């Protein structure tokens, strides 16, 4: 009995059991018709695959870690009731605008107050997060507890500014940028900075006591504080470091 289409295709794709494959090959050795059908199927498959490859695009450079972060944000979005992420972001900016004037004053009660409002609107954040965006102070920023592992991820279509990191005596990581230069999202161990102004420079203050803080721009690690050990792709020393922000995969514009 000849090989049917199912068995020929399975033989081609390695989907026959070892015994069935052996049996099929035995048949093929004595049957020119089935050999011809198999050869034809093989040739057609090669042709089709070659045609399909013509429409392929380069594989995007996406890392598992970035997708895990996406999952964290998707989880946060689905937990927020009655509000889409966009609406939350709008409310955040509104509150942050009110509080912005007092943001830079040490010991101000306003950050706590902002925190309690954003907590009500956005569901319970896992970290104590304060954000401000004000044209009166000339900066926008975010402040995040740094008692655990923290990844600060810069992302944007085009990055061209720079990051200045200074070690501080406080307990929170603070990030400042010109107003409107970026959006800030904090979730679990990630702090995502969506860069809107490609030329913007960011000021990052990291507590000397922070156990583990990493700064990344897309794929590239710019800075890592691991306990007392600091490593950076930029320049500087003794508690003050500079690093250029460049889009992933492009060479640095500055030393």
């Amino acid at each position, binding site marked *: 009995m000849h090989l049917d289409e199912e068995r020929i295709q399975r033989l081609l794709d390695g989907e026959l059991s070892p015994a069935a494959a052996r049996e099929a090959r035995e048949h093929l050795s004595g049957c020119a018709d089935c050999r011809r059908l198999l050869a034809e199927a093989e040739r057609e498959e090669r042709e*089709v695959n070659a*045609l*399909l490859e013509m*429409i392929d*695009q380069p*594989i995007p450079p996406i890392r598992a870690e970035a997708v895990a972060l996406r*999952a964290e944000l998707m989880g946060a979005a689905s937990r927020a009731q009655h509000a889409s992420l966009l609406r939350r972001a709008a409310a955040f900016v509104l509150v942050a605008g009110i509080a912005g004037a007092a943001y830079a004053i040490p010991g101000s009660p306003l950050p706590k107050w902002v925190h309690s409002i954003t907590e009500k609107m956005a569901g319970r954040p896992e970290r104590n997060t304060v954000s401000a965006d004000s044209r009166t102070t000339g900066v926008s920023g975010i402040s995040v507890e740094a008692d655990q592992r923290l990844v600060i991820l810069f992302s944007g*279509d085009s990055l061209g500014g720079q990051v200045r990191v200074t070690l501080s005596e406080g307990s929170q990581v603070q990030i400042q940028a010109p107003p409107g230069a970026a959006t800030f999202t904090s979730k679990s161990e990630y702090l995502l900075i969506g860069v809107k102004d490609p030329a913007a420079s960011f000021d990052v203050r990291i507590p000397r006591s922070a156990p583990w803080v990493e700064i990344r721009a897309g794929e590239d690690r710019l800075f890592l504080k691991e306990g007392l050990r600091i490593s950076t792709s930029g320049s500087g020393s003794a508690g003050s470091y500079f690093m250029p922000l460049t889009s992933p995969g492009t060479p640095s514009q500055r030393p």
Partner: protein
Amino acid sequence: MGPERAPTFHDQFVELFEAHFQRLYRYLSRLSGDPELAADVAQDAFAKLYGRGSLPDAPEAWLITVALNLFRNAASTRTRRLRLLTPARGEAVLADPPSSPDAVIEAEDTRRQVRQALDRMPERERNMLLLRAEGYSYRDIAHALHVNETSVGVLLARARRAFREIYGGSTDAS
């Protein structure tokens, strides 16, 4: 030195991602003709898997099923999608100076005809052809497309024939 720690879910996820992201992306890109959408949907499918907190029984079939559902919903929700990483746009095709204008035009024609042939195929056959081209197992294909595993071979042969007939028809016509 302490004992080697057991792999966490995060480790398992990273391993699965490294092994299968590319082919899920390529499958979706061929399916949709929209690399950006494919990258988003593939990421979202993996993100959903991460959000589960544990691996499903058949992770690859699970990813395909979820990606297909996301893909069907994507058209209406495109503007709401989170864009964390925007992959490089597919402009590489025109990046190199063309050595021969005729060859470039011919290649562009072929790409268009392949695209048209895929778009004209019945949905199930298109999915079969593209999944197999990425090397997915018969079991995963049967699972993801809800077909009987024992007839995947025949269905694949039929899908290949359908593609060749439509593609051949379009090249004859042009």
